């Protein structure tokens, strides 16, 4: 029963995200602190892959379709690495923001200008860490789903 396993895991993940959203307003926090929208791209890829994994496991269970899942799921495995790589891209963009915007027309004698510069620095660091974290978590959950689906398939 690969689909029900997948369904249970998805329910647990949705509950966890909902709890985090309820307690920490996490989605709003990520949306507000990532002007590059890289986390949104990671989220969309994660969502599509999760749906695809659910569909594959549904096929296995109800249609008894015998896929050559080593080839079938290759794109999903690739995507589970891609989300991490996109997170890394976000890190580099954050680094770029830290390095390029800090020293442009900086007035070290003005307290207001210093505040803005430190704000930009924090923003760059925020993007870097946020995208990394989103990429890593998405990758872990995707790989977990894939491993679970494939192992169950093999036992059928």
């Amino acid at each position, binding site marked *: 029963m690969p689909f029900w396993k997948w369904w249970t895991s998805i329910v647990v993940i949705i509950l966890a995200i909902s709890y985090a959203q309820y307690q920490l307003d996490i989605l709003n926090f990520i949306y507000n602190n990532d002007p590059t929208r890289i986390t949104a791209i990671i989220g969309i890829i994660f969502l599509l892959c999760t749906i695809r994994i659910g569909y594959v496991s549904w096929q296995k269970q109800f249609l008894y379709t015998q896929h050559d899942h080593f080839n079938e799921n290759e794109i999903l495995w*690739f995507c589970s690495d891609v989300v991490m790589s996109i997170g890394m891209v976000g890190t580099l963009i954050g680094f770029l923001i830290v390095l390029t915007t800090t020293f442009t027309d900086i007035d070290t004698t003005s307290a207001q200008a210093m505040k803005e510069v430190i704000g930009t620095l924090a923003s760059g660091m925020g993007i870097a860490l946020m995208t990394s974290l989103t990429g890593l978590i998405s990758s872990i959950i995707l790989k977990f789903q894939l491993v679970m689906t494939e192992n169950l398939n093999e036992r059928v």
Partner: protein
Amino acid sequence: MRGYSSNIAFIDLLFNLLIGFTSLLLIAFLLINPVADDGVVNPRAEFLITMSWLDTSGIDLDIWIEGPNKTIVGFPQKDGAFIILERDDLGNTNDTFLINGVEQLVERNLETVSINAIVPGEYFVSVHNYNSTVENDEEEYPTPVTIDLMDLEPYSLVLSKQVSVKLKEEKSVFSFMINEKGQIYDLNDDINIKIRPTPRGGRSDTDEGAVP
């Protein structure tokens, strides 16, 4: 091969650490406060010549300057047009002030001559010991005195020379030239030219009979 493991996460972590440390470094640099320019008073003069000796000394030393137009500035003639002696310090004799009925002691032995214009030519500087006796036996004798020549536009300490003067002695300290651009050149600290005038109108080549 399945991507069960990937080193992207590790590289990502290293980059994040790098960003963290870089940001800390940048913030540290930004928070280094620049030296405040407020409160710095720039003297309105081109050059300054200061003479200082031991603050507690009772010896009365006088600085004498001769400008290019033969103007001689010393304590009897403090205002020499563009060469001005700002204070005749008498050792510790005039260090006591009565302020609001309270006697206050400001122990400082310093005479300052400011040159307020760029007048090309040669300048001579000498020091005269006005005292005829040393009242404080513990005082170093001959009296050591430091004479500094400063260019103020821009600031640089051109020369600082220490000499020792005996009682009633006038000692030449240095001579220097100023050009049209206000630059000091041809410094000479090995001269023996007395500039203090005598009552007879000549130079104080002899210490006796000089104007006090």
